[in-house]
């Protein structure tokens, strides 16, 4: 068997929490897959427990079923706990396609970015 290739130490992913008066904005950039999905969900869940959260995913360039799985779980938590979550409607086409393909897009609380 060929020797195993090395893998990077860091994921191609960045998450930033920006506190704001009315919302906590959580901005995610890069690629969401198995390596980061649970960490992403834990970060968002931690904020949702105390603040309304706006997810800014416009710099998210890739998502697969790992990301869909945690977004779906977050939605269920939001409904059960009565938390407030909005997702900016600016999504990259590939991300939008995966969310649409899996049926999740229709259930996401999308928010037009120019709205209040």
């Amino acid at each position: 068997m060929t020797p195993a290739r090395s893998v990077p130490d860091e994921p191609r992913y960045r998450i930033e929490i920006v506190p704001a008066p009315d919302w906590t904005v959580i901005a995610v950039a890069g690629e969401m897959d198995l390596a980061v999905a649970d960490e992403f969900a834990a970060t968002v869940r931690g904020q949702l427990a105390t603040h309304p959260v706006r997810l800014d995913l416009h710099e998210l360039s890739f998502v697969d079923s790992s990301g869909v799985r945690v977004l779906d779980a977050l939605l269920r938590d939001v409904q059960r706990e009565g938390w407030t979550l909005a997702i900016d409607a600016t999504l990259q086409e590939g991300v939008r396609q995966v969310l649409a393909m899996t049926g999740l897009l229709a259930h996401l609380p999308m928010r037009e970015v120019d709205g209040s």
Partner: protein
Amino acid sequence: MLAGRSKSLTETDPARPADTAPPLYPAHVRYDATFPAVPLAVGEIRHEVAAFARQCGFDEPQLAAVALAVSEASTNAIVHGYRGRPGAIRVSAAIGDGELTVVVADDGCGLVPRTDSQGLGLGLPIMASVARRVEFVAEGGGTQVHLVFPCLDEAAA
């Protein structure tokens, strides 16, 4: 879709002399690598196979399909094949008969139903949505996922 045991889909074409002009989809080019079955490998495998497909002339929408399906197959190997235990994921890709075939293979516990399954069972339908064909092959104790994508001229035909 679950094809059970079958022979490998891939064929290795004999090497051609380097001084011949490369065809649009060079059939002699092949990608092979082995990765540790860890979550950070998913992105690396996805990028490596997409880079190979780009070399073979795939365009952006095709590359997105390849990257997505490969990501799902690699995730399956880690989550369902090895169930988080250490292991190796063998990845190969080759062009033949107007198609790109990617094989993601593990030596995990095989296609075993599990009641503690994580997630929503999304990986398989996603692969089926974006690949021309998906085949699961029980090989030894592990699983091979064969993902087949049409080359551009085939896709347009």
